């Protein structure tokens, strides 16, 4: 009796250990481990608070030059838009019948501007700008929107500190918000 109980307990222990191992170990285990260097090279995500912003800095003046050379053909000399989106203006229009949605009027987080320019702009040569250049272009676009002064130089800390006017303008999805009835006659 005692012996069999011990055996049972032992078996349970082994099972528990196996279960733990199964949880910790991959079932299939395909793929190879990603090294920190590989992850750092590919991970260009910048969060809304800018904690993942990279080192570097750029000024409004540098951004002005870069913008004229790399961005103005699509976005206009002063970010007024063209082939590309309008980037400037529209503050105070969101609650009107003709909202104008730009970086200045609509974008809630300044670090997102860095994230997007770095990954996707310019349209014909994405991921070609250095981090310093992305800071500079971001600074210029924010300056055009009156959100940083002409003299500004932005880095990880100062870009994250820029408070965007529409930061609190987003709400969660309330749908279903329309409640139609399946009326069949005399509708």
């Amino acid at each position, binding site marked *: 009796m005692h012996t069999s109980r011990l055996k049972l307990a032992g078996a349970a222990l082994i099972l528990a250990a196996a279960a733990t191992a199964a949880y*910790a170990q*991959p*079932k*299939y*285990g*395909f*793929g*190879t*481990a*990603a090294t920190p260097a*590989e*992850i750092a090279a*590919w*991970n*260009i*995500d910048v*969060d*809304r608070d800018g904690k993942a912003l990279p080192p570097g800095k750029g000024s409004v003046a540098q951004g002005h030059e870069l913008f004229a050379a790399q961005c103005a053909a699509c976005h206009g000399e002063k970010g007024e838009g*063209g*082939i590309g989106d309008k980037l400037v203006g529209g503050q105070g229009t*969101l*609650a*009107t*019948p003709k*909202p104008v*949605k730009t*970086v200045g009027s*609509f*974008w*809630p*987080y300044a670090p*997102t501007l860095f*994230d*997007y320019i770095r*990954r*996707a702009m310019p*349209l014909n040569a*994405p*991921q070609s700008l250095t981090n310093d250049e992305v800071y500079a272009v971001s600074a210029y676009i924010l300056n055009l929107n009156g959100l940083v002064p002409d003299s500004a130089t932005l880095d990880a800390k100062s870009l994250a500190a820029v408070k965007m006017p529409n930061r609190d*303008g*987003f*709400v*969660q*999805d*309330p*749908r*279903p*918000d*329309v*409640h*139609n*009835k*399946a*009326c*069949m*006659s*005399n*509708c």
Partner: protein
Amino acid sequence: MPKANATGVLCEICLQENDVTSRQKDSVRESTRRQFIGAGSAMLGGAAIAAASGGKAAALDTPADPNGPPNIPAWMKAPGADAGELYGKPSPFEKKVVRNVPKNLKQYTSASTRTPLQELDGIITPNGIFYERHHGGVPEIDPAQHRLMIHGLVERPTIFTMDQIRRYPSESRIHFLECSGNPGFEAIYGKTASDLVGLTSCAEWTGVPLKLILDDVGLKPEAKWIVAEGADAAALTRSLPIEKCLEDAMLVYSQNGERLRPAQGYPLRVLVPGFEGNMNVKWVRRLHVTSEPAYSREETAKYTDSMPDGTARQFTFYMEAKSIITRPSGTQKIEKGFNEITGIAWTGHGKIAKVDISTDGGKTWQAAKLQEPVLTRALTRFRFPWVWDGKPTVIMSRATDETGYVQPSFEDLKAARGLKSFYHNNAMQPWKVAENGEVSNAHVKA
């Protein structure tokens, strides 16, 4: 018993058949039919058809069909094309069944093209005419060089090759995809079903349940979101809620039996069934497991729904129940008597439960027949027999899904959301039938 009359669509086919006749005669006379077919691309063939029919119309005095009885059709009198076309194409006479590409866009790198819904049957969209929406063009990716990296809040950050992804147990499922702006609230005046809701398509997808791979790399308890990134020039990123990733999300490598087309994310894409198209990240190369959404440009500046009070709804993932009559629909023409009304319905919230049809402008409704299979988060084909009395009217369809949600009118949506929300317009589509049988969009710009 209603008499089966030819619909406008059938008449168009008749015209095409006349084209065939002319083309056949010309081609047989000038060379051999096989040489003719072998010589030209579909486009050249189309041009030849137009030229031939134009010429013959004047030359032919007799209305008799030279390929109808008592004549033997020309295509029976000589062998057809050899077997061995390496990748088959549609008949050159189906030249209307192509993507609906908007004209005069500022650029086509970040753009969309539409499925010709009114030309299709059943629930599956052929791969060559699946709708497109790209943000940085269509990359040409060598699958041998493509890598998927999973990192962040996981036990084992891992890099996968395509061969390694394909070693996981896989499954095939039929799901629709729909772009969230389909159409925008201020773009409801299109002429055809494709102009209006052509950013909807449906396919059988094959891939690996994302849960299998996430279990393998080991999610940490704080994992709440997965930021998926495409390997395109937009490096497009969207944040996927972890619940959906563990429920029915897939990493897809095949579509309708063959490998994904480049325009659909070759060699690997995310599929989050029922969620807005943009979240089904194509060319996926990175899954960053996080505790918070990325708040990327595509989920702040874009793909958020602006309300009249100036706020914008964010993370509006699900596509709500929707339907449209594809035949008869805008630009088609019908004749008095029997006409089958058919169309498609779908919902991001599961299965379609019911589709009702009104043929009197919304005063009365009757249930359409849902054609099997009726699948979760897939297009459902509906059919309704109708005898048109020849009087002008308005026809429309209304979908109800398994949650009991009923597709709204555009007026109801507008009352709730205004006209600036752009995305997630799932309104009913009324079609006007004129006395002469011409069908047009009942929404007319004031």
